[in-house]
């Protein structure tokens, strides 16, 4: 394929009556086979962007090509190639997961086996109606319906909301397997750990603008941030920030004559840099520069 999977230039969307645009000039590229996570606080514009890309919402400006097609004008051939897990859905309550997945499989020319899909999302033995399932189980039905058509490009809008920790890890496994098959994935999430585990790239949106577009390792110059070393001395916690943690640990080891009580070396977590990014509205200047220099 020569074209990128998703190409967005200058995307704008202003809901009628709103004070500010919900999406205010966004550029985004997603290559085939890439997994990109869109992060941002509530109301940042993530769902608006994703639903414009899915062809659900109209845009007020900008260019959008998804699998080479304008989603606003796309037809059945295009929908065969995408999979959608929307943020909210309250339909299908009177069907069982198996009935729903089997039925939706029929819409596609080359669907996955419905029983395999149910197994994959952990709904293998579930016989109740969707309306009687727990929130997390219902969400798995949404995921099942999103992947049953064997999409080339999968949109996941907060797919793991309501998942228990085990279910979340199972879901990560599933996403990795889909990515390994070459599926391009655009997901939104509020779980930084999830973004870090799954995404090749992160795009942070706030106030309808992209404020950072980086890999999980380099977001906000993270790789070059000082490390924090914690230890206990005389029963009291001590902490020091340093660019040379190994040297500090060696000094401490020498001082304690062996093991250092309560020793921990921390780098800022993705969540730390993410929150800092949102607090300042942009990547810290000197750190971004440091990231670019090396």
């Amino acid at each position, binding site marked *: *394929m020569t074209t990128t999977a998703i190409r967005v230039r200058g995307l704008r*969307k202003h*809901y*009628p009556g709103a004070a500010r645009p919900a999406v205010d000039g966004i550029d985004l590229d997603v290559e085939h086979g890439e997994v990109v996570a869109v992060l941002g606080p509530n109301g940042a514009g993530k769902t*608006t962007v994703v639903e414009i890309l*899915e*062809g*659900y*919402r*109209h845009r007020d400006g900008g260019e959008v090509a998804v699998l080479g097609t304008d989603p606003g004008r796309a037809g*059945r*051939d295009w*929908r*065969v*190639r*995408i999979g*959608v897990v*929307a943020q*909210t*859905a*309250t*339909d*299908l*309550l*009177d*069907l069982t997961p198996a*009935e729903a997945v089997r*039925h*939706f499989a*029929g*819409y*596609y*020319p*080359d669907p996955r086996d419905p029983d395999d899909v149910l197994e994959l999302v952990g709904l293998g033995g579930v016989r109740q*109606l969707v309306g009687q399932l727990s929130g997390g189980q219902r969400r798995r039905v949404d995921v099942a*319906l999103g992947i049953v*058509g*064997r999409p*080339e490009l999968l949109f996941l809008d907060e797919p793991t909301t309501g998942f228990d920790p085990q279910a979340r890890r199972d879901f990560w496994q599933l996403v990795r397997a889909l990515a390994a098959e070459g599926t391009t994935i655009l997901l939104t999430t509020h779980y930084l750990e999830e973004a870090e585990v799954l995404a090749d790239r992160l795009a942070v949106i706030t106030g309808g603008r992209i404020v950072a577009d980086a890999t999980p390792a380099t977001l906000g110059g993270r790789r070059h941030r000082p490390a924090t070393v914690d230890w206990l001395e005389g029963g009291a916690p001590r902490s020091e920030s340093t660019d040379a943690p190994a040297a500090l640990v060696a000094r401490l080891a020498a001082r304690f004559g062996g093991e250092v009580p309560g020793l921990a070396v921390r780098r800022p977590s993705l969540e730390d840099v993410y929150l800092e990014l949102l607090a300042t509205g942009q990547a810290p200047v000197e750190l971004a520069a440091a990231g670019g220099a090396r």
Partner: protein
Amino acid sequence: MTAAGLAPLPSALPLGLARGALEVKRFFRSREAVVFTFSLPTVLMVLLGSVFGDHGEPAGVTSSQVLAAGMIAAGIMSTTFVSLGTDIAGDRDDGTLKRLRGTPMPAAAYFIGKIVLVAVTTVAQIALMLAVAMALFGLTLPATVGDWLTFGWVFALGVTSCSLLGIAISSTARNARSANAITQIPYLALQFVSGVFVTPITALPDGLVTTASFFPVKWMAQGFRSVFLPDSMAAYEPAGTWELDRVALVLGAWCVIGLVLCLTTFRWRRGQDG
């Protein structure tokens, strides 16, 4: 890329029938809908029929038989206009339509599914009403082939026009709850002015009858009275005859109007979706 580009897309008719099977399953699983949709016209018919009693009208016809013939028209409007209007607004509200829009399902399959649903529920509804009317009011089934034919085309045109209008009106509702109100009001009002509850229709003020004459219910009821009542009862119609040509004309016109309204107003998305 994948084989998806090469494999043919599933066609609309089998998908529509599969949707129909799913819709029927869904319908019978949601108990309130079944009880409400089915029982209301029949309960009304039984109550009103016992109020009217068997007041003899001429030609050995009772008031309750006249009522029953008209109530069948109302029963059709209930399973088509009211149910479909509310159902589709519900599909828009709860994300059914949105989810379908994200799949390659052809739009026609959705509507074929609704046609199957309406066909099943309406036939069941009318069978129930006929059975009750035969048991309680001594209504008899049409005796001649001609009457059965008339029954057939009045039924078909009535179901088609009211279904299309139900689909169209669903687009005016903000959500499923308002759709219920929006469909119930014309449903009840038209039954009153169309001589369904008040028989014979000539007992109503002329102005009301004239108003009712612009809408389908009056003509469906008249058509069914021509089928189930002896021809001497035509004297109690506004024109003194069954006016079957008019019945066909008005119902046919509403089919066309309904289709145009559907095609021009149908929305996949909720108003506030942006």
